[in-house]
């Protein structure tokens, strides 16, 4: 539904985006990853039409991005705030009317969301009377209220306690199940693995990796396994695998190893099963966190 093609963005003295292209599929949750200062925010600002690219195109639902698309996009920036002196209800109403909703429709939806997120009594409160986490909830509601086709969330969970983070995560999944597409920018890799279907990794103004999360992780498998067993046998000098690590656990030992040559994991089992009691075996798949660190360090 959204395709970014060869975007270049140059600021006064540095290149923020260097020929970046990516595809966001409809109904998916797309993770936009990268270290600080990589160019994520610059890219998001181009998609939300806050700034314009120097060259390249953004295509939204088959059309070149234009001002008609503003109302179909919801954006929760990382640096976000509200008018401090304004009442919550009035404020969300104002923001959603700016996105083209009528007063009646907006009021109806605000009531719906406030009930849903346990914010029922907040309408007449002022922003300065709310905690940071409570303000984040208000901002989330303001972002999704106009039912946008595409929602862009920049670090949506920062500032939330685990209970509210979970609440918001479930709302994201529910909206996604109804067909809303998400772009999700974060540093928290565990939430990427929980939520994202696809990702793109941007580093130093360039896209260095993209694809489905499962495919990427599969691509980073390297025949590493972890086995837990009870027994005293010594496997440190095996012909089948190289030992990476041997640790003592509560119930025995845990051995992390990498297979040699053409051996498969069953060969390991065959060899060990007669010598020790095996409790657990699993493949060690690199986490997104590992992949992130590995790629960015390169």
């Amino acid at each position, binding site marked *: 539904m959204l395709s970014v093609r060869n975007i270049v963005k140059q600021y006064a003295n540095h290149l923020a985006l260097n020929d970046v292209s990516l595809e966001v599929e409809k109904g998916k949750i797309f993770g936009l990853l990268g270290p600080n200062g990589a160019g994520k925010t610059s890219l998001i600002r181009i998609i939300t039409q806050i700034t314009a690219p120097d060259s390249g195109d953004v295509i939204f639902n088959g059309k070149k991005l234009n001002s008609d698309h*503003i109302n179909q996009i919801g954006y929760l920036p990382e640096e*976000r705030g509200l008018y401090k002196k304004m009442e919550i209800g009035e404020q969300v109403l104002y923001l959603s009317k700016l996105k083209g909703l009528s007063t009646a429709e907006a009021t109806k939806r605000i009531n719906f969301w406030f009930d849903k997120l346990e914010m029922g009594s907040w309408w007449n409160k002022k922003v300065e009377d709310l905690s940071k986490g409570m303000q984040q909830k208000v901002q989330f509601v303001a972002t999704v209220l106009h039912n946008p086709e595409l929602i862009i969330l920049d670090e949506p969970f920062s500032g939330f306690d685990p209970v509210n983070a979970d609440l918001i995560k479930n709302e994201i999944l529910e909206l996604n199940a109804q067909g809303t597409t998400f772009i999700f920018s974060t540093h928290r890799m565990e939430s990427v693995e929980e939520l994202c279907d696809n990702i793109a990794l941007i580093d130093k103004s360039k896209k260095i990796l993209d694809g489905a999360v499962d495919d990427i992780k599969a691509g980073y498998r390297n025949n590493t396994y972890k086995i837990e067993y009870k027994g005293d046998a010594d496997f440190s000098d095996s012909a089948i695998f190289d030992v990476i690590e041997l640790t003592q656990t509560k119930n025995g030992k845990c051995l992390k190893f990498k297979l040699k040559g053409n051996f498969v994991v069953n060969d390991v089992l065959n060899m060990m099963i007669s010598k020790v009691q095996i409790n657990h075996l699993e493949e060690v798949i690199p986490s997104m966190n590992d992949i992130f660190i590995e790629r960015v360090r390169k």
Partner: protein
Amino acid sequence: MNKILLIIRREYLSRVRKKSFIIMTFLTPLIIAGFYGLIIYFSIKGINDKTDKVAVVNQNKTLKENLVSNRNVTFEYVNDSFEHLKKNLTKSSYDYILYLPDFDIEHPKGIELIGTKQAGLTLDGRISDSIEDLIRDYKLKKSGISQTDLDNLKIKVTINTKKIGDKGEEENSSAGASTIIAFVAGVLMFMFIMLYGVQVMRGVIEEKTSRIIEIMISSVKPFQLMMGKIIGIAMVGLTQFLLWIVLTFSISALTVTVFVSKDDAKKMVASSSIVTASNPGAQQIQAAAISDGPLGNVQKSIKNLDLGKIISVFIFYFLGGYLFYSALYAAIGSAVDSETETQQFMMPVMMPLLLGYALSLSVVTNDPYGKVAFWQSMIPFTSPIAMVVRLPYGVPGWELALSMIILVIGFVGTVWFAARIYRVGILMYGKKASFKEMVKWFWHKG
């Protein structure tokens, strides 16, 4: 367009509902009316109720005539010595001692005035005037002019200034009335532009520091946000101005009836030479007193000034001048992270406004048709103040039109200029803005 209206509405309502706005709006006319009441009060009672008593020690052999006492100064000639009087001044009933030595009449020197307190400029002037009169009279008599001729020479003249209006008719005018209106208009204009311009800047800084700006401009264009804010605040200013006019006029009317008691009114009618009231009904006397008394001249002239025109031109220049400056203030607000950083940028914006203010209230009121006045009322940096100051004295139609056109071109220019800085500035955080930086933002494309 619809979005700009929403922004205007929010900016307007959020300010008009503030307590400080409501207090300011209702308190200011009360204060103005209070001043107006005081002026009327004193013009009836006379500001100087107290008469200074001056002991005169005259050792001059030529000046035999006595200084003439008047309402404010009583001269009493004493035979005591100057030194003795000086010692006992605090105990005596005199406020001052005037010492006239035996000076040469051609070069009066050595006159001293000693008091328990420093004599003010007015007293000083009054006494020296009296002495000058005395010397002049002496000299005139010496050259052979009789006392009767001298008395005949003393004539008081009041000038009834008139001006030929646009249609050739004669209008009563008074330099006094024009100057009062010019001052009030000039000060108000300066205050309004400053006050509301700074409000625009504060509003922009608030949006920036509260970090709502990025949420806002993902919904509206920076230009819409800036213009919405500027127009919304302009409407707050207009509301306040119109309320002030209505309230000031109604409260002032009330003060006049309260302050001018019937007795005072009678006194004033008696002292006036143009008593025409044949019906001694209290109301008429009161009205007559106001229209014919010393204040009456000014009031009559104010009526002739066409307040409607002055107010509507004032509103035009307020809007024009405000738009001109507030756009610059918006640009400043966008460039900084907090209000404390605004100082270095405020100066260059404030200077022309201050200069216009200072020059308008001095040079322009003295010579409302001169070159300085003309150019000041053409250059958009100063024209809002200069033109409203000139207006009560009368300004040719073409000058007014030309100045208005230049002002419109001027504010379109500053709005365009400011918008280019604003759109980049509002997204810049933590970077110390400089003029060099702002020039870069201005040329930034996209």
